[in-house]
């Protein structure tokens, strides 16, 4: 065999492997860049949400927040439950709080549906497992998602104890039945998406779409969105005044969506 050709192939192979190993190390050493908030945007030390379950249940069957969110963010309506994309939706209380229900519980609560969404955990397992930093926690606590970096490995879906993440099993655009909103990007097939607490609206000084519509439809205080890092904020006062639950607190994820019951 041609010795020089073999020598070249060996050298090229070693170089490729060397680059593959050296690049990650170089990248790991380089730091992250944090952008400054825009003027006029809403800011917080720690964004959080409190849902007043009894108030919400007075309008049993209401979908205002779900529809507002899904239209706002071009979330497709896929009929096949196995391939659904959902940012916020309803689940039976007894499945959402499996360890809290018992047979004598008020069925007006245990048999009803509650709103579920990404909990924007303080200690998010999805962020820990992501192999490309396509999902991360912002300094204000919001767990963000970069659908352009996501490789679609679905490890975050596997690691999320709440089932809050959706994968695009196919191109979602044909399923956006309400017409594509050009102000918000659509997604491609093969990436994960989820609720972002409407970071794009907060940056413009607006409340999340679900909260805004709920305030109009159900009245203030049904969905409370605010700064859990501020001692006298509306959300902290509401949580102090009543009894609230969080989903699967024993896992140590520190979810930041509270259910006032």
């Amino acid at each position, binding site marked *: *065999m041609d010795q020089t050709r073999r020598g070249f192939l060996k050298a090229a192979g070693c170089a490729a492997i060397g680059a593959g190993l050296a690049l990650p190390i170089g990248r790991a050493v380089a730091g992250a860049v944090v952008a400054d908030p825009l003027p006029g945007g809403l800011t917080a030390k720690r964004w959080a949400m409190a849902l007043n379950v009894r108030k919400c249940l007075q309008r049993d069957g209401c979908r205002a927040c779900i529809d507002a969110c899904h239209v706002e963010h071009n979330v497709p309506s896929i009929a096949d439950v196995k391939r659904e994309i959902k940012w916020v939706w309803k689940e039976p209380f007894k499945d959402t709080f499996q360890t809290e229900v018992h047979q004598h519980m008020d069925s007006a609560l245990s048999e009803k549906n509650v709103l579920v969404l990404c909990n924007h955990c303080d200690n998010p397992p999805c962020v820990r497992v992501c192999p490309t930093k396509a999902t991360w926690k912002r300094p204000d606590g919001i767990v963000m998602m970069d659908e352009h970096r996501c*490789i679609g*490995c679905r490890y975050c879906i596997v690691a999320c104890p709440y089932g809050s993440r959706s994968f695009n099993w196919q191109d979602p655009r044909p399923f956006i039945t309400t017409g594509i909103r050009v102000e918000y990007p659509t997604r491609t097939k093969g990436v994960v998406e989820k609720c972002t607490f409407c970071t794009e609206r907060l940056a413009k000084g607006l409340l999340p779409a679900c909260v805004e519509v709920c305030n109009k439809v159900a009245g203030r205080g049904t969905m409370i969105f605010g700064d859990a890092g501020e001692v006298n904020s509306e959300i902290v006062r509401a949580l102090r005044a009543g009894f609230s639950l969080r989903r699967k607190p024993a896992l140590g994820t520190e979810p930041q969506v509270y259910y006032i019951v």
Partner: protein
Amino acid sequence: MLEKALHGSSRYWTLIIALSILALVGVAVYLKQLTTGLVITGLSRDVPWGFYIAQLTFLVGVAASAVMVVLPYYLHDFKAFGRLTILGEFLAISAVTMCLLFVVVDIGQPYRMLNLFLHPSPSSLLFWDAMVLQGYLFLNIIIAYVTFTSEKKGVHPPSWIKPFIILSIPWAISIHTVTAFLYSGLGARPFWLTAILAPRFLASAFASGPSLLIILCLILRKFTKFDAGDEAIKKLSQIVTYAMAANIFFVLVELFTALYSDIPEHKHHFEYLFFGLHGHNALVPYMWTSQILAVTALVLLLFPKIRTNFTYLPVICAGIITAIWIEKGLGMVVTGFIPSPLNKVNEYAPTLPEGLITIGIYAGGFLILSVLYKIAVAVREELEA
């Protein structure tokens, strides 16, 4: 050396062509998956990992099991494994290649795969899995290449290769440990949240990998002049026996903890796996098949007369491979998702395209293996002529 793979009998070429066709079918179906998305698989919101990741898990075990021939030969100077070692290393190369391909076909955006290296995330076990698998592939390629060329020239391998060989031993353990940690570190999935998972993976790997190696040795002995030797094959069957006993013990330990503690979120998964949950029982017949095969194989292996009978042995080995392929493949992966975190039971079954892609990757892996074994056999025949 590769030119040795270009001259072969018609039987060899039939094998090569058959494997190539299956691999090409896999490529064609994969192109379909690439254009339409993973919707062509049976995967879903509730069961986001399935057949592909199951094969990855099983094959990492096969790759790691090369250590079962490397360790006795290089650390204990067990001479009988002299001829076998190269077969084990080549099997590892082929298995790791298949593992990496299964990762590629499982991800939704393979074009962005380099993001794994552009945005390295040491907190992610998937990042580490990709790193250790590549490292293991690299180690096995160098070791096999250097030791094999030395053997061909009739000289001792250079001494600088020894540290690489020693490193490959803990590295083999590491690839399967990291694969187990992919699963066992997740609070969201109580079924996998067990410290026994990594030891169990290793035990089942050391049973299934050497079983495959025994079958391959017996095939080579039958169709070529390459003979790994009776002593080597018998020793492998002993290794399989011990590993299988350990594996069954670990499974029972796990069952005890989950069932006796009676904690619903742990128990429900095992109920689904062995008896079905709320009338859903897709995995039940497979799991019982697996367990019956495993116990029967172990009982048979315990008798030295059966274990050393080269007519029965490959059949028992095939039983072990099947049992473990089911148990740590779909049984282990899919059950972790059922019931879901929101208490739903959405079952999973692979689709035809998913099956064809999987067969395509196996065909590709065995194509690599056939070429490598062909070279090994040709060189051996030359040396002995």
